C-alpha cells in the first residue's frame, strides 16, 4: 500500500467504518440511558422539573468557590483544554471545509496562526493534566487503563494535527493520513469510553436539576 493509497483508504472506507461505529454507538448508548428512566415521583411538585433541569445544565459549568479552591488545577486545566479542543476542532478552516463538504454547514474560521497557538497551549495542558494524574496519589488510585486510553486518543489527533500542519518528519500525505486515522480511532472508542461524557454530562445535569427543581430547591 503506497502512501496515497493509505490516505485514500483513511479518507474513504476507514472513515465510513469510524462514522458508523461512532454514530451507532452514541445513539444506542443515549437511548439506553434515557430508557432506564426514573421512578414516578408521587409527591406533589413544588417547582418545575424542566426549568430546574435546564438551569442546572448551564449553572454546573461554573464551579462553586469551595470546589475551585480545592481543585484549582483540575478546573483551570480542564477549561483550557476543552476550549482548546473546541477551537482546534471547530474553528480551523480545513475542518470547517470538511463539515461543509459532508453536511453543507459552514461558519467563519479563526486565522490559522491563532488556531496553531491554541493547539500548542492545548497540547501542553493535556500533558500537564497527564502528569497531574500520574503524580497525584488519589488521582492515580482512581485511574484505570481506560482513563489513560481516553487521554491518549484525545491527545493523538492534536499532536498529529500539529505535526501535519507544520509537516515535520514524514511526507505530508502520510502525516495527514495519520492525523485522520487518529481521529477515526477517537471516533471508534468514543461511544464505549468515558468520552461519552460529551453527551451524558448534560443528561446527568438535567436529571440532577430536574430532581431538585421538582422539589422546589436549588440544585
Amino acid at each position, binding site marked *: 500500500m503506497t502512501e*496515497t*493509497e493509505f490516505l*485514500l483508504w483513511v479518507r474513504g472506507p476507514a472513515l465510513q467504518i469510524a462514522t*458508523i461505529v461512532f454514530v451507532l454507538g*452514541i445513539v444506542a448508548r443515549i*437511548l439506553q440511558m434515557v*430508557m432506564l428512566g426514573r421512578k414516578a415521583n408521587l409527591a406533589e411538585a413544588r417547582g418545575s422539573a424542566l426549568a430546574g433541569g435546564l438551569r442546572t445544565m448551564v449553572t454546573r459549568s461554573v464551579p462553586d468557590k469551595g470546589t475551585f479552591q480545592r481543585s484549582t488545577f483540575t478546573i483551570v486545566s480542564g477549561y483550557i483544554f476543552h476550549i482548546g479542543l473546541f477551537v482546534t476542532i471547530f474553528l480551523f478552516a*480545513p475542518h470547517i471545509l470538511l463539515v461543509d463538504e459532508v453536511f453543507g454547514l459552514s461558519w467563519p474560521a479563526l486565522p490559522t*496562526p491563532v488556531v496553531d497557538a491554541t493547539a500548542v497551549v492545548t497540547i501542553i495542558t493535556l500533558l500537564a493534566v497527564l502528569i497531574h494524574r500520574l503524580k497525584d496519589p488519589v488521582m492515580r488510585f482512581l485511574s484505570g487503563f481506560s482513563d489513560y486510553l481516553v487521554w491518549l486518543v484525545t491527545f493523538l489527533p492534536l499532536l498529529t494535527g500539529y505535526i501535519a500542519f507544520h509537516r515535520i518528519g514524514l511526507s505530508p500525505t502520510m502525516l495527514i493520513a495519520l492525523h485522520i486515522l487518529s481521529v477515526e480511532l477517537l471516533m471508534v472508542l468514543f461511544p464505549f469510553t468515558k468520552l461519552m461524557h460529551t453527551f451524558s454530562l448534560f443528561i446527568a445535569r438535567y436529571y440532577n436539576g430536574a430532581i431538585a427543581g421538582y422539589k422546589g430547591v436549588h440544585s
Partner: protein
Amino acid sequence: MSKDETLGEALRRQGVTRRGFLKFCAATASMMALPPSMVPVIAAALESARRPSVIWLSFQECTGCTESLTRSHSPTVEGLIFDSISLDYHHTLQAASGSAAEAARETAMEENHGKYILVVDGSIPTDNPGYSTIAGISNRDMLEEAAKGAAAIVSVGTCAAFGGIPAAKPNPTGAVSVSDLVHDKPIINVPGCPPIPVVITGVLAHYLTFGTIPELDDLKRPKAYYGKSIHDRCYRRPFYDKGLFAETFDDEGARKGWCLYKLGCKGPTTYNACATVKWNEGTSFPIESGHPCLGCSEPGFWDGGSFYSAISTPTEDIPKAAVYAVGAGAAAGVALGAMNRAKKQKSVDAHEKVTIDDLDKEK
C-alpha cells in the same frame, strides 16, 4: 557540433554571451542552494566540460516531457545547454530513423560505456512486452541494456519516476517506474507532468560541475527543487492562513485570487518548484492562473481522488453511512433499553418482602 567541442565553445558559437552564461550559472547555484562562491566553479566546470553523451529513451509516455524541455519560444540559456549535450539518441528529436537510429544508440552506448547519462521518460510495461516496443525491442529489455553502461539515470517526468498515468488504476499494462526495475545505478527522479525544464538542466549542470548527482530526497528527487511544497512557497498562502477561499472558479474569491484549497488544490502535499521557478520562462504557474495544483510531481497523483475535492475531504458517502448508523443505533438502543427494563422488571417480580418471621428465623 563536434564531440570534442567543450560546452563553453558550443555556447559561444551559438551566440550566448559570457554575461548570459554567468547569469545562468548564478541562477543555477542559487536554485541549488549553493553559496555564491560556487558560481565560478560551476562556470569553469561547465565551460570546460566535454559534452556528455546522453541517451534518451521514451517508453509509455505522451512526449509532453520532451515538449516541455524543448518548446522554449526564444532560445534560452537552458535550451542551449540542452542543445549542447551530445544527445546521441532521442527517437522524437533525432533526424535518423529506423535501424540508423538504433545503430546510433548502440554506438553511443559502446563508445561511452560507463560514462553516458541515461534519460528516461515514460513508464515501462511489465505485463505483455508487446504493449510498447521500439524497433522490436521491448521497453524493459532496452532499459535494462541501456542502464548497464550508464553513469547515472535521470527519470524525467512522473511516468518514469513513479509510473504516472500508465500505472494509474487499473494499470492495464503493468506499468512500473525506472526505479522499480533498476536498482544498481544512481537514479535521479525529476517528476512532474511535465517537469519544469530548468530542473532537468539544473540536474545536468550539477552533474557536469561536480561529477556527482545532487542531494536527493527519499523519493530520489533533487532537494534543491523538490525540497519545499507548493503550499509553502505559494503566493496565495496568506489567504489560506486567513481562511479566505475561492468557493467556485468564478466567485468573488476566485477573482480576488484567494486560496484554491477548497477547489481541490494539492499544493500542501506536493513538492515541486513551480511556485518559485514558474513556467513559460517565469511567467506564471497553474495556481497563478487560477487553477488548483494537481499534485503531478507526487507518486500516484492520478489515483489520489478528484482533482477538485480538497485533500482532507472524504472519498465515500459519509452522510449516508451516518443515516444508516442512526437507524441501526436507534434499533440497538431500544433493544438494549428493553432488555434492561425486562431485567429490572424481573428483579422487581422476584422481590420477596421480608417479614418479622423471616428475621426471627435468623436467630
